[in-house]
């Protein structure tokens, strides 16, 4: 069997809504992944440092406060700077459709909006990690 996928579930910014992050973390774990959850109020610097230290293959971020346009691209570019651009970065939360093309342009592989089944996120990760 392949070794399990390692995922960092992260809450960037000041947003305290962590129901989605915790549900998805658990769904990833139940799908056989190794999950690290950062807890609230992480700066992009902290997320990148944890991702590298924990040697994850996926960074999954959740934001419901509207700060995604600022924070998601920042994490992607900092990962690149640190030479960790092989990590798959995905995001979820209350994110308007209009914002999605620019986020993908910036290097976020996929955005999962409200109502997405956890199974869909799991499948996306399995198909898109770089191994």
């Amino acid at each position, binding site marked *: 069997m392949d070794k399990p996928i390692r995922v960092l579930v992260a809450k960037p*910014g*000041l*947003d*305290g*809504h*962590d*129901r989605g992050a*915790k*549900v998805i*973390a*658990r*769904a990833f*774990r139940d799908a056989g992944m190794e*999950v690290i*959850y950062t*807890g*609230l*109020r992480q*700066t992009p610097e902290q997320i990148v440092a944890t991702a590298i230290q924990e040697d994850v293959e996926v960074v999954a971020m959740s934001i419901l*406060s*509207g*700060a995604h*346009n*600022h*924070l998601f691209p920042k994490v992607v570019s900092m990962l690149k700077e640190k030479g960790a651009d092989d990590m798959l970065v995905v995001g979820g939360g*209350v994110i*308007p*459709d*209009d914002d999605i093309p620019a986020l993908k342009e910036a290097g976020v592989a996929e955005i999962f*909006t*409200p*109502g997405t*089944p*956890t*199974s869909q996120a799991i499948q996306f990760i399995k198909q898109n990690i770089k191994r």
Partner: protein
Amino acid sequence: MADKDNQDVISKAKRDWEEQRLEKLLSKRPERKDNFVTGSNAEVQRLYTPNDVEGLDYLEDLGFPGEYPYTRGVQPTMYRGRLWTMRQYAGFATAEESNKRYKYLLEQGQTGLSVAFDLPTQIGYDSDHPLSEGEVGKVGVAIDSLKDMEILFGGIPLDKVSTSMTINAPAAVLLAMYIAVAEKQGVTPDKLNGTIQNDILKEYIARGTYIFPTQPSMRLITDIFEYCAKQVPKWNTISISGYHIREAGSTASQEVAFTLADGIAYVQAAINAGLEVDEFAPRLSFFFNSHNDLLEEVAKFRAARRLWARIMKDRFNAKNPKSMMLRFHTQTGGSTLTAQQPDNNVVRVAVQTLAAVLGGTQSLHTNSRDEALALPSEESVRIALRTQQIVAYESGVAETVDPLAGSYYVEAMTDRIEKEASEYIAKIDELGGAPRAIDKGFIQKEIQDSAYRYQMEVESGERVVVGVNKFQIKEETPKGLLKVDPRVGEMQKAKLGELRKSRNNVKVSEALEGLKKAAGGDENLMPFILDAVREYATLGEVCGVLREVFGEYKQSVVL
């Protein structure tokens, strides 16, 4: 309700009905499902009869509205006397923008204000703090100093409106700013009506905008209780909130249990600080969620009222009836709204509005249909407000008090929720009270388990969410969503720069120094905070001083 003979007669008749009628039908036409459950996963029987409420004692368990145990409501006439306060939670971008929205809502017939602050404000950072980047003005209005607060309430007479402020960790600072704005309008503090949320325990549990550790946070809260009892007597000093606990995924019973357990902790803290229970308890208020399971929600509100009355009387020996009354604000369930077919949310909100009103709420915020997509547009907010007005003026449910009392199902469920919540509270007592139970992650874990179970039910199709896992359609990208001007952050920063130059910085430093000293001792901090905000010390500066003295809360993360 029924005497023994009568119960036996009913039991026998029910058995006959089951054998002669029901079984025949079921063999030909089985029911839709094997098990029926509420929105919170509690079992629902096919039929409720007087025998399901056989233990109910009318005078003891229900009584009359405005009387202990307040199951039927906190006022004798309820909505026949006055309708609930229609209060839409609003705030975004700058104080100028939000002030415009408040005036619009007041023109549309709203009867109270409810202020949403942005995250930096809620966490005690100024708009120019590095952690504020990207968040300024996003989920609410940015308030950095008294200057912003003066603009926010410009042209709104503070002796005429009641204002609710969703502010917790820095509640003392925002309340001080509100008092200072009123002073400038010539309104004395004793004329002020309103509420601060000021409920830090649920921030640790579910909402996340904490700053300080538990001990100093509880002190700030009891300082506010004490100060307001003397200076701002009509102010609701806390809104003990189940709303966010439910949004985080709890069941209805857990919502009641964890909210009242938090309430117990606040009352105990105030008593420990030397306050008389009947001095502060009448100003405690509550805040609940209203979800889609109409009858379960009605039962929840009734159970919460009865249980709190009993706790205040039996546990804390309150004597003043007002100390035993659970008065509450309700908001419809944001997490029940779907991004898919957003117009369907209008119907969900209408059902939830009915639940809140049939449950006897004192005020209500109705969510807007587009909230799973963005901040609500003006048009969506108007429909949400109209929903309340239709229920108030057209549905007829406001014309009598507690109309669902006596329903076998509703009464049985009211009992069940009270019992389940009491069991949780006993468990939390065993763990050493709510703050300890939170430190141990017990409350968070219970909520997460419920949230995860719900998500799996939706994904398996066991639980139907219209438009999400059934009755889907192909949809266009929704139009007309509200966008916050991305320049808000820069605008706030510029304003703040101006302020720091134009105010009397010597006086600001003196006031902050005084506050720091007081924070290290045990004086009431409210007068010191007031001095600082009057000199235009910023929210970030005031909270910064307190951070230095108190330190910061460390979240306990459980998965």
